[in-house]
């Protein structure tokens, strides 16, 4: 209840916003170790926010009902985004110190971006949705270009900004059309208005298509994926890690909510678009990744492929689909946290690892790390008994429940193709003879080690007690 004014600070988003400013001030007044202290504080703030989200009750949002919504699905994805954000701040700390990029603003940018994502996930109104998207994107544009003296970082920031601005423009145009034809910005009102009609008129279809294009850009679905490999490649590794782990969670939740709340009755109209995006993403992600020699570009294409699978579950558009998406997203986050935790600690000749072929001989010099990478890769490829398999398995259950046989067959075929490049990494580590041993060294801080072990534990041991996650995701409502 909001009768006590102080309760307003316990609304997670408001708490996060206020705390982010506190962090900013905190960093500003610190003389020494500003970056490290701010990072720690940011992690602490995010942890508290998770608690608040967890105990958040619907009444807190009563006053914002028109702008934001509240459901178990939203809470699940919020917590997922917060967890991903925490993990990526922790694993990237040593990397930033390693490349002497000690701006204390970086964790603050992550905080603001996470705030934007939470609002994105919860938004129930075209306007709040747009503003939330912009909040998270602006922080990410800055983050991508944060290494000012590096040309590639600046390039990736500018690329991301220009294409992001373009997509925002398209999105906004779509919003204006939808608003123009329905007379409302609120998801529920739009849904109510549309329920009176059997088909969408041409203007609304245009609006829907424009919005879909904008959202496809945000989730980096093919053919709107072009920015992803470049931005991943150019940005500092730890920023890439953040890009890979967190914004995807929010964007996926948003595209789910946008399709399933205001346009739930017009399945046929949007499902065709999503169907195409899904198949194209799976295949392009799988095929384009084969030729990559840069591990970040490879992971970029891999994430494009993963988005394709999540969109299968969206095409299914049933309860199983929502369940599948949340399980898949969870497994996606865990696997990316694990792989980036390793990548951010691997150094080849005192440079952070970029080329896949530099992994050569890792299995001799560091068997445990190479075993971990292999497990993550097999899990990403969807080979049982790891968690990645169950993500895909639930996606296919949802698809077949909706009788999408052809789509499922495409999905499994793409997964076979993608298995090739995941196996290639294992091949480089284990099968190739290396002449230059001992040039790779692996240094990991205690905190990252905890994150890494925890995520590996989840990847391997999910099979023994799947019900914990599955029961949660089965109870989600959009």
């Amino acid at each position, binding site marked *: 209840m909001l009768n006590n004014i102080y309760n307003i600070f316990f609304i997670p988003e408001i708490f996060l916003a206020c705390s982010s400013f506190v962090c900013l001030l905190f960093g500003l007044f610190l003389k020494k170790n500003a970056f490290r202290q701010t990072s720690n504080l940011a992690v602490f703030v995010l942890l508290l926010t998770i608690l608040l989200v967890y105990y958040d009750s619907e009444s807190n949002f009563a006053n914002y009902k028109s702008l934001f919504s509240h459901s178990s699905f939203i809470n699940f994805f919020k917590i997922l985004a917060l967890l991903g954000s925490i993990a990526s701040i922790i694993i990237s700390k040593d990397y930033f110190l390693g490349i002497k990029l000690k701006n204390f603003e970086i964790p603050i940018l992550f905080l603001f971006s996470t705030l934007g994502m939470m609002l994105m996930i919860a938004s129930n109104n075209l306007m709040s949705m747009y503003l939330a998207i912009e909040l998270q994107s602006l922080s990410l544009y800055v983050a991508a270009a944060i290494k000012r003296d590096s040309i590639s970082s600046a390039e990736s920031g500018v690329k991301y900004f220009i294409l992001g601005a373009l997509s925002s423009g398209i999105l906004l145009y779509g919003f204006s059309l939808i608003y123009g034809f329905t007379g409302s910005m609120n998801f529920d009102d739009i849904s109510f208005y549309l329920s009176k009609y059997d088909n969408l008129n041409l203007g609304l279809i245009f609006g829907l298509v424009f919005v879909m294009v904008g959202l496809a850009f945000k989730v980096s679905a093919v053919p709107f994926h072009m920015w992803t490999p470049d931005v991943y490649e150019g940005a500092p590794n730890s920023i890439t890690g953040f890009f890979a782990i967190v914004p995807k969670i929010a964007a996926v939740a948003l595209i789910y909510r946008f399709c399933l709340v205001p346009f739930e009755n017009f399945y046929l109209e949007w499902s065709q678009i999503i169907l195409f995006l899904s198949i194209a993403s799976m295949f392009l992600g799988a095929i384009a990744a084969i030729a990559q020699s840069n591990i970040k570009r490879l992971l970029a294409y891999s994430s494009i492929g993963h988005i394709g699978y999540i969109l299968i579950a969206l095409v299914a558009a049933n309860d199983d689909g929502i369940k599948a998406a949340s399980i898949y997203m969870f497994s996606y986050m865990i696997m990316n946290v694990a792989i980036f935790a390793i990548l951010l600690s691997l150094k080849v000749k005192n440079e952070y690892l970029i080329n896949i072929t530099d992994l050569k001989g890792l299995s001799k010099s560091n068997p445990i790390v190479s075993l971990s990478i292999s497990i993550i890769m097999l899990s990403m490829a969807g080979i049982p008994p790891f968690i990645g398999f169950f993500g895909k*398995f639930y996606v296919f259950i949802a698809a077949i429940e909706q009788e999408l*046989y052809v789509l499922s067959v495409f999905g499994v075929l793409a997964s076979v193709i993608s298995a090739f490049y995941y196996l290639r990494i294992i091949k480089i580590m284990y099968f190739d003879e290396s002449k230059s041993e001992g040039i790779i060294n692996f240094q990991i801080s205690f905190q990252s080690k905890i994150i890494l072990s925890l995520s590996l534990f989840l990847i391997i041991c999910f099979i023994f007690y799947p019900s914990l996650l599955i029961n949660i995701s089965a109870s989600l409502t959009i």
Partner: protein
Amino acid sequence: MIDWPLVSVIIFLPLIGALIILFIKEEELTSINIKWAALLTTLGTFILSLILWIQFDYSNPSYQYEEKFRWFDDFNFFYHVGVDGISLFMILLSTFLTPLCILASWNNIKKRVKEYMLSFLFLETVMIGMFASIDILLFYIFFEAVLIPMYLIIGIWGGNRRIYASFKFFLYTLLGSVLMLIAIIVMYRNTSSMSIEFLQGNYFSYNTQLFLWLAFFASFAVKIPMWPFHTWLPDAHVEAPTAGSVILAGVLLKMGGYGFIRFSLGMLPEATEFFIPLIMTLSIVAIVYTSLVALAQTDIKKLIAYSSVAHMGIVTIGIFLVNQQGLEGAMMQMISHGLVSAALFLCVGVIYDRMHTREIEFYGGLVQRMPLYATVFMIFMLGSVGLPGTSGFIGEFLVIVGAFKFSSYVVIGAAFGIILSAVYMLYLYKRIIFGTITNNKLADILDINTREKIILIPLAISVILLGIFPNLFLDPMRLSLELIITNYEIVNAK
């Protein structure tokens, strides 16, 4: 009956052994502790699996030693394992061959012994788990997980073209099995059950069955392998280390046959009826074609690999005859082939370890220097040809008897293949063993040593035992096979 979870213990004992090995420090050069730990674990597993056989109730056609636990809360997936007459010998085959594999790699695996033993123990767990699972999802998980250790075994410890072979093996089999995943989900959607036992009650419409059948066919035909899906096999066999080939030929190929019996025959009888001509044609082509190809090989391992495809052709004929003789013959042929081809690969390993080549040209006149080797090799060679008194005979004979009930053309094809198998095996034997030593390098080759005797003699004994007392093996599986045949006939008689 036993009141402790025997099957689970057998499945997970190798995995526990693997965990222990993970923490054993690897000594320089010898790694003797790791080898002993692996050997003892696998031997223990074998002894436990013998209890399965001893305590097996011959009069019970369905699953025994069942264990069932809820695994997923939202769906009807169970951790459900058990053993029936069909899976009993597959499990025994796996547990019997793995210790032999460990022994066979005792001296010739020099690099990364720890990883090697871990792969083998993990492989044993998934193989046994696959044959013992009664829940299809569990089956699928084990079925796919087999790829991981096998990929590593071929890729790390294999020959020159190991990378190509390992990728081909992995992707080819993965392509087959992902289609099976779709089929499994479709089955679940129609029946809300994943129990292999339950699904054998025929719940699918005719058209659904056809599609499901094709999806299962994709995965099992690659695995068994049938012509024209066999091309991964020669590569994988040739490039794999000896023990890898042994497991590949001895157990992994049987997964295909086992799958055909359980899924195609058991769950999709009407579709099976429809596709029988296809299977028969492919099998006969496989038998004749791969036998001829085997005849032209210059590499011993490749020759045995092609002969495996031919022998598996007999198995598929036997399975899809769907009568008592045919199925029993197919099962016997699978067990026999598991022993014989494994032994043949081990025999090749023996001379490969000494001379580091598998070219047939290189050898000749080995009998002069290795009389004992020549003897055991002959037993296995005759077993492969199907001489009466060896295990190979029983399987081939039963399949041909069963085939007479079906069509005499099939009999002609199968018999022609058997004649060809005698041709290429005897020809191989003649070239390698008989004659005088022409190659000087062979002048001081040593006969098999004690370790190799320990490996080969149990195999030789079991090949002959199988040939003389087939009922020892046929009796336990008879009722389980009858159950499948009766169900098949009832459905198709409608």
